[in-house]
């Protein structure tokens, strides 16, 4: 005796077009099977008709939420193959934007989680705070979401000292605002009732199923690609945020604490940012193979690029964090309640557009 429920691609709580076929018994999930492909565009193939500069704009649109990290990682690949040294200021600026993206992404996610929990006011509140970061993006980069600041060899826009000061002011404000809602996540009986113990992923599972990012750290694995010190991270002090429990609440806490971490990193960056050029001239065509990794809000991003000195790159391969987080999600769903499906799905912060590219 079972109920079969389609979940997505068009579903009000799951904003992303992912389809899950749920087999339920008294609302307990017995089986969950996914269908992907509702966002698949095949943009990796565009590398064969767009040159490497144009590809910067294209990979940026793999996903709009942490767009600049895609462009950044792609640029690192090409720069790596061509042996280009990016000016230090450009590295710092790239990371400032990345961290701002991480902040807006985490807040966006927190809002969506609140919405899945049915807590509309928290959704509204967090998204309102998020608009502050969006304003920063718009003022510094010229666009709210897809900021298009990276280019091969550096960045396209500089930040004035005034702007940097303003950013510090904004993140300070954000910190006080976050303090005010902290107890909702850490203490609230109802919120914890919906998240604690829901969708438990053990250390072992997280490790073996290849989880990434907050999903991995929520299960106690202290792995954060920023520790590799790419770009300007080598100049910054921070330690990965880790929670032990591996449930939805732990993942929530990881992201929430990472908001504070990002605020701290932005402050450090702005304190240390050097003056100087923001880009170098690029000449020639790359060749060879390269792998670059970076940390997105959702976890590890990996680019594999192959080139042979041609006008077009041979292959651009993108491994996104959600792609890695789907198998753990499928492992977490059976046995949970139907009401928790959305919560658990959102606790991995799914980003299907980058999963399918």
């Amino acid at each position, binding site marked *: 005796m079972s*109920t*079969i*429920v*389609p*979940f997505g691609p068009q*579903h*009000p*709580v799951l904003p992303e077009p992912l389809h899950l076929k749920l087999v339920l018994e008294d*609302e307990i999930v017995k089986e969950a099977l996914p269908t992907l492909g509702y966002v698949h565009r095949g943009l990796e193939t565009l590398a064969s008709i767009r040159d490497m500069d144009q590809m910067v704009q294209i990979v940026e649109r793999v996903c709009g939420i942490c767009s600049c990290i895609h462009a950044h990682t792609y640029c690192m690949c090409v720069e790596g193959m061509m042996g280009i040294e990016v000016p230090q200021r450009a590295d710092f600026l790239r990371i400032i934007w990345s961290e701002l993206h991480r902040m807006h992404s985490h807040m966006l996610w927190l809002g969506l989680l*609140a*919405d*899945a*929990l*049915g*807590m*509309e*006011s928290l959704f*509204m*509140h967090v998204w*309102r705070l998020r608009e502050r970061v969006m304003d920063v993006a718009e003022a510094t980069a010229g666009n709210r979401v897809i900021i298009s600041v990276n280019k091969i060899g550096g960045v396209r826009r500089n930040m004035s000292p005034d702007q940097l000061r303003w950013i510090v002011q904004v993140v300070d404000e954000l910190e006080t605002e976050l303090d005010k809602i902290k107890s909702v996540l850490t203490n609230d009986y*109802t*919120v914890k*009732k*919906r998240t604690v113990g829901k969708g438990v992923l053990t250390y072992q599972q997280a490790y073996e199923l290849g989880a990434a990012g907050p999903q991995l750290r929520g299960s106690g694995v202290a792995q954060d690609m920023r520790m590799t010190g790419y770009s300007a991270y080598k100049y910054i002090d921070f330690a990965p945020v880790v929670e032990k429990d591996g449930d939805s609440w732990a993942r929530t806490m990881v992201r929430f604490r990472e908001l504070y971490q990002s605020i701290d990193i932005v402050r450090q960056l702005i304190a240390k940012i050097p003056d100087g050029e923001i880009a170098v001239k690029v000449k020639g065509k790359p060749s060879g193979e390269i792998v670059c990794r970076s940390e997105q809000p959702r976890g590890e991003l990996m680019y594999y690029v192959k080139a042979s000195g041609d006008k077009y790159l041979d292959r651009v391969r993108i491994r996104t964090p959600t792609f890695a987080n789907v198998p753990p999600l499928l492992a977490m769903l059976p046995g949970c*309640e*139907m*009401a*928790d*499906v*959305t919560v658990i799905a959102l606790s991995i912060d799914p980003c299907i557009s980058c999963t399918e590219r």
Partner: protein
Amino acid sequence: MEIKTIVYVILAIILAPIAGGLLSRIDRRLTAWFQGRFGPPILQPFYDVIKLLGKDRQVVNYWQIFCVHIYLVAAILCVALFAMQGDLLMIFFVMTIGAVFMVAGAMAAPSPYSQLGAQRELIQMLTYEPLLVIVFVGIYFVTGSFKIDEILAYDRPIFLLLPLLYLVLTFALTIKLRKSPFDISASHHAHQELVRGVLTEYSGPYLAILEIAHWYDIVLILAICSLFWSTSFIGMVILLAVTYLAEIVIDNVTPRMTWKWMLTYVWAVGISLSFFNMALLYAKNF
């Protein structure tokens, strides 16, 4: 029947949806303010309903239409019976007609969301119905009658004697208003895993009818709340205003819970509160 009663009944039938609509609008505006937003215009709920009435008819299964009309009739009947100052328990049972037919209508549609919504709606009924009966029994305990005219004739605010039972009644109110943490079977906006639960397969005019019936329902249950301070008009208004405001705040500060939690929590808390209140009453009497 006296002329006065007939006038009351007609007034109630006309005014209830208007009051329900206005309440729903106040609700939305206040919710918006609690969320730091501006909120919808004054007549929004009426615009919504009129628009829905003007949309094309679509149907998944025509039993649904039958059921939704019965729901409306039952809801109007309840309000009319209340205005006639009938028997509380009878009104309650008539109310279940509406609720059952809403569920039956949702189940008539072969849609997973609507069906699961119906199941949850049933569980909600299971949750609040005993509580309502207990509340009515409590009122009977104090006033010695189930008949509204005799309850109104009681000379002290019942609230003072049954504060905890009033709290129990607000559980039922929250469920009926479809508010967090109990908005599990249907919600105002589709932000839940069941899309819009029992409402999913109703569209256009039929959705409008449901909405109007829901307004009647809300007015009825608020009217029952008002019995708790029936001695003075001001007391009644204050009680209702405070109750409704509390509902909105609770809606905004709690996530939606699961049906298992709802059933166990509400039954446990509701029943113990009722017994506590009863014990207090006994203690006072002896």
